[in-house]
């Protein structure tokens, strides 16, 4: 059965853009405002799921040729890796640090290693969420 979903497709085209922007915003806002790796990852992941719901898997896969299992794996490695990395700076496991840096173009910015940790969280959430949903929906 072919569903006529012109409206859905048109709406999603705009909405996904907004969802992704919101997801990225939430991710970076995390340290000082509501947001963070988990919620950012959830929003981005649900945006991707929305794409999959609207278009078929092959089409979306052409645009985003990721294996989401690997995305999740990279996320886990990033999180644990950033935790282990602190050992090499002679501080306890999982120590995070931050500081203010004067960057070209954007001016003084607050950078923190916790962002790397949170990026791992976000990637794991995205990867796992999309993997699970894709597999459930594919199952015969």
């Amino acid at each position, binding site marked *: 059965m072919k569903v006529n979903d012109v409206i859905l497709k048109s709406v999603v085209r705009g909405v996904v853009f907004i969802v992704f922007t919101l997801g990225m915003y939430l991710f970076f806002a995390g*340290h000082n405002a509501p947001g963070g790796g988990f919620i950012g990852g959830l929003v981005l992941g649900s945006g991707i799921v929305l794409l999959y719901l609207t278009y078929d898997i092959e089409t979306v896969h052409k645009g985003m040729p990721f294996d989401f299992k690997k995305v999740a794996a990279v996320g886990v490695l990033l999180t644990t890796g950033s935790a282990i990395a602190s050992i090499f700076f002679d501080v306890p496991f999982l120590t995070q640090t931050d500081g203010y840096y004067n960057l070209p173009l954007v001016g003084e910015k607050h950078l923190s290693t916790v962002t790397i940790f949170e990026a791992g969280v976000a990637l794991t959430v995205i990867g796992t969420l999309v993997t699970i949903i894709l597999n459930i929906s594919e199952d015969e």
Partner: protein
Amino acid sequence: MVIAFSIMLPFIAAALIPLIYRGFKNIHLGWFVLIVPVALFSILATYIPRIANGEVFIKTFEWIPSFGINITTYLDGLSMIFSLLITGVGSLVILYSIFYLSTKESLHHFYCYLLLFMGAMLGVVFSDNLMVLYVFWELTSVSSFLLIAFWHHRKASRAGARKAMTITVSGGVAMLAGFLMLYVASGTFSIREIIENLDVVQSSVYFVPAMCLVLLGAFTKSAQFPFHIWLPDAMEAPTPVSAYLHSATMVKAGIYLVARTTPIFGGHEVWFWAVSGVGLLTLFWGSFNAVRQYDLKALLAYSTISQLGLIMSLFGLGSAALHFGYSTQSVIYTQATFAALFHLINHSTFKGALFMMVGIVDHEVGTRDIRRLGGLMSLMPFTFTIAVIGSASMAGLPPFNGFLSKEMFFTATLKITQLDIFSLDSIGLLFPIIAWVASIFTFIYCVIIVMRTFFGKIQPDRLEKPPHEAPFGMLISPFVLVAFVIGIFIFPNVLGHYILSPAMASIYPMFPSAEELTPHISAWHGFNTELIMTLGVIVVGYFLYRTLKKWRPVYQLIPQSFTLNAIYERVINSSESVSGRVTNRYMNGNLTYYFVYIYVFFVTLLAGYMIYADVFSWNPSKDSVIEPYELVLVFVMIAAAIAIIFAKQRITVVLLNGVLGYSVAFFFVVFRAPDLALTQLVVESVTTALFLLSFKYLPKLKNEYISKSWRFAKVTISIAVGATVTLIGLAVMNYDRFEPISKFFEDSYDLAGGKNIVNTILGDFRAFDTMLEVVVLFIAGLGVYTLIKLKAKKGDADVESK
């Protein structure tokens, strides 16, 4: 820093293997892996002169300082010996495996496990912290499990791997308990610090229990009687693995542990009898059983068991020296420990060579069964040379290194009888007798290895391949090892001075001079009792070998059902069926039952605790004002919850559940928790989407008939759960038995540089939770994926049972 790097290097290399494997398909993966142990060996070798001068290298990385768990790497004489063996034999084994394993095998798995194992093993010998040591210790068990089961399509491989894992890991858990007791007794996990505060530890009530538990770990790992049964089954692994794990390194972890903890426990009667007694028993039992084997590899497995027993018993004998503290009299007994370390190295050289020899025979001929072999001498002259040198050294004949350590072993057993502690003057006489009898059996099986494989008549029709000499590459590694066998015989004192002497200093830290602990080894030590014993071994051994057929039926005397293996099988099988039956009783696949278990547990525990501690309290005076819209929200939620119970259609249930979820999100907004509100909203939306996706696969809600009593029970449980939660919520407001920690988080910006407290908790203060949650989420995702995707196809079951 270098030492920490050498632990990390194998792990890093293991992580890189998939990349190299894809990038260089034409080159055997082993060549890349070979770099790792060779590099490590070279680095470690540069430390030898400084270690020989009595230096030690310590470096601490803080891990969980609040619990005293730090990664402290510690390089002294003892860890030096073991690390040189691990990397040295490791290099040779990998070189050998390049020619042994064809590129058709899944080499990337093989080398990945092997590198993991190497790193874990280095971690064990370099760790000063007991907890870190334990982690690496279990990692060696896991990686050896993977290696034994490398050919996992074979049933015997899987069974062998499981057996090795079950036994060594149970021992490891006992050891962990022992370590915790040591911690309680001494207040530190650091082995060095425990040794520095010996009097406190030795006067503790935990001293003897901790000792027994640590010994359990050591005995299971080093395949001591009666835990030795896993080692012969582990021979299902590829031969390079057997040569590496099951003769040169992993099985020696137990011996390392005994050597390392000798300064703590040595000198105690229990330690002396347990270590030397079990060691001697293992020595005898292993050699006695080796003679009956037909498979060359199984024969070597039993021989390894017996040799490990020999080394173990020597450590036991040497520990007696600590009973007196430092004195000239006790220095004599430290020579047993010296002999143990010496034999440890010798054993790795000749047994490694022998395993590789068996691998070559198996590889070139297609069988390891001595009933089918014979007459290979003229066809495989190089292999024959290796076999003769290795076996002669193992049998303790000159001019090979095994002779030297064997003589020292006899000396140690003879001397210990003169010691007048632990009632050694009477039963002590058994020591040299058992040692001598076991050596006779050792001699017999060494003769069997050489004679039955290389002499006699060749039976070409019973071999699977036409026999011919092995390729040159396969012969390099065993030749290097037998070169050591001879070289150590000629220059034993070089080894004694540079390698063994510093290790003696770390086993006897309270003895002032390492020089005094290092005896001069000489090949000709006079015409004394030891030499007569050796001559006796040769004469009696040869006689027994000639009459082997006549007395072989002795082995049939023990009934099959009483062997240790049969007991192991029975325990495993019965525990499987019992746990299966128990599990089936409560895991009946009905969700309602699971909820009942969970909730009953929840109510009993929490409500029970609240009644026990009497913490019910409700003091509304401090509460903030309840706004009217909050009341509205609460009523919406209550209405939705009640409506769910009476809903007749699934879609209604899903929507009502959504109403509940969104209302909770609203509450978070009202109470100014935007983070939680956001998360709740997104999660709620995603779950609802999931529900709708899988909606058409779900069955219609059915009205099942439920008996009155069951319905009553369910209602009671629901009300109890609700009441408990409400009461906890009310009681928490007035609970003041602990200092509130909220003050701590108010400084989040100073401590973690973030203004959002929720996220600083997740990312900084309690990041360990977050990290593990991410891992759990990932594993759960993989679980869902495998459950859905990787259903066993039909016909797989046949392959499994092969």
